[in-house]
């Protein structure tokens, strides 16, 4: 991902199995409902948070967290 380019977080709701790890790594954009499933804020992620967003995507046991690049 090129620096300065806004990207946002998306969760594939079908793949998600509700481990809650993404919200632990990126609480700035992802919170959990009372069942432990993510509620995602699609506001673009600022540069200083991109590393954590990538980490959230990497940590997901179901690989359901996606980073989308804004056009």
């Amino acid at each position: 991902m090129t620096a300065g380019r806004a990207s946002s977080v998306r969760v594939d709701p079908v793949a998600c199995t509700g481990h809650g790890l993404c919200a632990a790594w990126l609480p700035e954009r992802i919170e959990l409902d009372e069942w432990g499933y993510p509620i995602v804020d699609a506001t673009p992620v600022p540069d200083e948070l991109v590393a954590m967003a990538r980490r959230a995507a990497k940590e997901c046991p179901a690989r359901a967290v996606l980073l989308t690049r804004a056009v």
Partner: protein
Amino acid sequence: MNAALWYLTRASALVSLALLTTSLVLGMVTSGRSAPLAEGRFVRAALHRTLSLVMVVFVAAHVLTSVIETYVDIGWLSALVPFSSSYDRFWVGLGTLSLDLLIAVTVTSILRQRISHRAWKLVHWTAYALWPIAVLHGIGASTADQPLVLGLAASCGVAVLSAGVWRLCAVDLDRRQRKLAGLQGWR
């Protein structure tokens, strides 16, 4: 020198067993989705990965020292090809088999973001076979009868069995939530 290698082989085997057990239990706890809202859930997943990688180092030490030491004759080939060792063919072969599984699980996990999720998961499931095969290898190939060793093996067995039973019962964690939601009615 040879004696030192022999002791290293056995010591690294014991450390590997403890780490493999901890890692498997942590993996089961993660996949069983225990407490997705708990504070420390990301530590658990990170520990699962870190301890597994540390275990790989100890297993590498175990295999290297087993091949290098000369009390028993285990060749380089039989470290990788199961049941090819002239010494203690069956029990050493089980160790080789678990090493091959460990290599497969480790490599696919390192490449997890690049390969299909299904392929990763299929290979990762073989960890459930890896543990009993490695433990059988330990029971059959080991010559140790010290209470410390037997105690470690027994506690590892208890840990994996109880985590396994918990994991089998934890197939549907939303069951309770669904029941509660049903009682509450639509909101």
